[in-house]
């Protein structure tokens, strides 16, 4: 039974701005996320210029004052996590791929899908509006600890602080709605024959990420309401002189904040899984093990949060417990990486651009993970907390997640999304021009961090014992590397937009992949499939011997296989 919806070709508004089609909504999230990435990247440029060349006029900005520095780092962090990583990894890829990969025509609730984007867009606009208010955008760090975040007298950005909080709250509502829609679709709307273990890893990862988000965001929503009241209604939820406790916010924030990093990690690992299977022409090694370790990671992520608070004055016995759990969680994550490496072993490796990004993810993320051990142990964390070592660690995890895996996914699914191939040469130039400078930015910061450089300080010259002038060349190197990395993004932008019109036309399945999204046209039509597919096998049947093709798509019946 198919739903033949007869309607006239919709106008521009209905087709691109008011659509309920998951593919259009995916594009809306993607382009909004990319635009926010430009803004977040610009802010990083400005504050790194201040750090590399203190108190010099920054081209394209001006002089960075202490207040502006605080706002820049706050906005950079908030934007990159909430308005770039989450919308692109989860909402854009999830929206585009879930109905296609499970073999149905749209999300289970298309209008709720549209509403989710609209609320998300509103949240982005609320955040951007804070750039225009008196005092400017919020400057209390993306972690927004009270009393700094609760009192305008302290953070000097009272209106910005409330707008930031509202923007984050709206973003949470958008992702709760969207996430529930994704989960229901993946659970209920699968093609006939697609059993639980026939679902592509990426879909599992996005769904588990949504569940982790949903379970962890609740307490922070409660905490945000309390912070909002502290900011605007003279309550004292986080004020110890009035019966409250600032540590409560920290706990509520990190109870969400730590699962959040896995919320963005899981889709990134899912994208990498899909790509390495295709470009090693080999099925994922240990599909079920990957799944079970992911469930373990998801659950464990809820019991490690206070490792962000080792020096905040928490009960030391809690610090013991959280150290142990934090070190434990590295085990399933490492196991997943080993499974990916095992997938590559013995495979027929094709180093196309998507595969380069996927391999870079594995290598760079491992560095991030290994450096996390020093931070997860409460003893060493006492020294390393809030130094540049920490910043380098989380950029070695976040950049693979939000940038490397995103480029992997974009270069891989671009043909399906837009019906054109990206230019391979430009893709490789962009790849090396991003990955090499990325390492040159952050390796010096590991060194300065161990030497003692504290984060969130706009100018070390203000603090005699902090200034360590012999490290300035490292800070400057880091800044210059960032300039290179930003410059090479122009290559990507050019490739992306030029190929929309002038790229080689892509067929339905240019990468010769087995999953269902490649079983329809590029780009897929409204309704996705001319005839809804049926699934006959798992998603990674590659490397098959004795056949004309070395892969067997999920939707091809056994009878039709050439002998």
């Amino acid at each position, binding site marked *: *039974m*198919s*739903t033949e*919806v007869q309607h006239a070709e919709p106008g521009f508004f209905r087709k691109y701005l008011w659509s309920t089609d998951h593919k259009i909504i995916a594009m809306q999230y993607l382009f909004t996320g990319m635009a926010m990435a430009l803004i977040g990247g610009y802010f990083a440029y400005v504050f790194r210029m201040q750090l590399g060349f203190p108190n010099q006029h920054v081209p394209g900005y001006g002089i960075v004052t202490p207040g502006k520095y605080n706002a820049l780092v706050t906005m950079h962090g908030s934007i990159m996590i909430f308005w770039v990583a989450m919308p692109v990894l989860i909402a854009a890829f999830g929206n585009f791929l879930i*109905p296609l990969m499970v073999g*149905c*025509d*749209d*999300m*289970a*609730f*298309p*209008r709720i899908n549209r509403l989710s984007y609209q609320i998300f867009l509103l949240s982005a606009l609320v955040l951007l509006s804070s750039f225009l208010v008196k005092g400017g955008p919020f400057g209390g760090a993306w972690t927004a600890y009270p009393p700094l975040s609760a009192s305008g007298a302290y953070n000097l950005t009272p209106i910005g602080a409330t707008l930031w909080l509202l923007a984050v709250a709206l973003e949470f509502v958008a992702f*709760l709605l969207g996430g*529930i*829609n994704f*989960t*229901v*679709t993946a*659970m*209920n*709307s*699968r093609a006939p024959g*697609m059993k639980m273990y026939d679902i592509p890893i990426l879909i599992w990862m996005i769904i588990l990420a949504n569940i982790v988000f*949903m*379970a*962890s*965001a*609740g*307490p*922070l*929503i*409660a*905490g945000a*309401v*309390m912070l909002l*009241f502290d900011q605007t*209604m*003279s*309550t*004292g*939820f986080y004020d110890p002189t*009035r*019966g*409250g*406790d600032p540590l*409560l916010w920290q706990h*509520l924030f990190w*109870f969400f904040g730590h699962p959040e990093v896995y919320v963005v990690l899981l889709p990134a690992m899912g994208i990498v899984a899909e790509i390495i299977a295709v470009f090693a022409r080999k099925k994922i090694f240990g599909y079920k093990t990957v799944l079970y370790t992911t469930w373990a990671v998801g659950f464990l992520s809820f019991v490690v949060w206070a490792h962000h608070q080792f020096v905040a004055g928490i009960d030391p016995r809690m610090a013991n417990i959280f150290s142990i759990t934090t070190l434990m969680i590295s085990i399933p994550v490492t196991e997943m990486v080993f499974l990916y490496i095992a997938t590559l072993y013995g495979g027929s490796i094709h180093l196309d651009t998507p595969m380069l990004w996927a391999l870079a993810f594995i290598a760079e993320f491992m560095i991030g993970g290994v450096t996390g051990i020093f931070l997860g142990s409460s003893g060493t964390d006492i020294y390393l907390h809030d130094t540049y070592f920490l910043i380098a660690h989380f950029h070695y995890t976040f950049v693979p997640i939000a940038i490397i895996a995103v480029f992997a996914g974009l270069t891989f699914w671009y043909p399906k999304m837009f019906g054109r191939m990206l230019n391979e040469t430009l893709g490789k130039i962009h790849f090396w021009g991003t990955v090499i400078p990325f390492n040159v930015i952050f390796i010096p910061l590991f060194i300065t961090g161990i030497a003692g450089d504290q984060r969130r300080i706009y100018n070390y010259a203000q603090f005699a014992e902090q200034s360590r002038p012999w490290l300035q060349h490292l800070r400057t190197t880091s800044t210059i590397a960032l300039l290179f990395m930003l410059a090479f993004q122009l290559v990507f932008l050019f490739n992306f937009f030029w190929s929309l019109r002038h790229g080689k036309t892509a067929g339905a399945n240019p990468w010769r992949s087995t999953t269902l999204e490649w079983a329809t046209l590029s780009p897929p039509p409204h309704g996705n499939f001319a005839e*809804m597919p049926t699934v006959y096998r798992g998603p990674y049947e590659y490397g098959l011997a004795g056949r004309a093709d070395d892969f067997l798509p999920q939707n091809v019946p056994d009878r039709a296989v050439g002998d």
Partner: protein
Amino acid sequence: MSASAKPISNTRSVTGIPTARLITWWVIASEIVIFGGLLASYIMHRIAHPEWAESASHTLTWAGALNTFVLLTSSLFAVLAHKAADAHDGPKAAKLLRLTALGGLIFLCIKGYEWTLDIREGFVLSSGGFWSFYYTLAGLHGLHVLAGMIILLIVAADAAKNQELQRVECIGLYWHFVDIVWIFLFPLLYIAR
């Protein structure tokens, strides 16, 4: 938008649970953590501050008990509406859903009156730890009651025409959840001294 415009994805049911009810359970799951987080924060403060018992003694128990009765009764109407929908009697389900919404309205009116009395005594949101939590908890719950009322009326409008009857059970589930939250708020805010 008529029912015939539903995508195929909406009509499939690999889990055996219809999509509408499935999404309702997920909504309830996420709300458990939201209210749970706020309640946990309140409980740990309340236990740590025995002196808040003095403030707590000023809450109007009769209003809380009456509101509990109102919500329990409205939940009864909600589940009777589900029964009517199962019997394919859309107009009867609509009537019962509207009675449920009326219960929500009465709840909010009693709360409005109760808060007026509290405020006249000088107890406002910023009057101290207990009152901040009291208004925030009851206020968040009240917002959910209001949202529930609106959805009840929308579902009732369709049900009256014998359309989208599967939604009757779903909004009922949400409403029962809101009722359960109040079942715990009542002792926490009104009885425990």
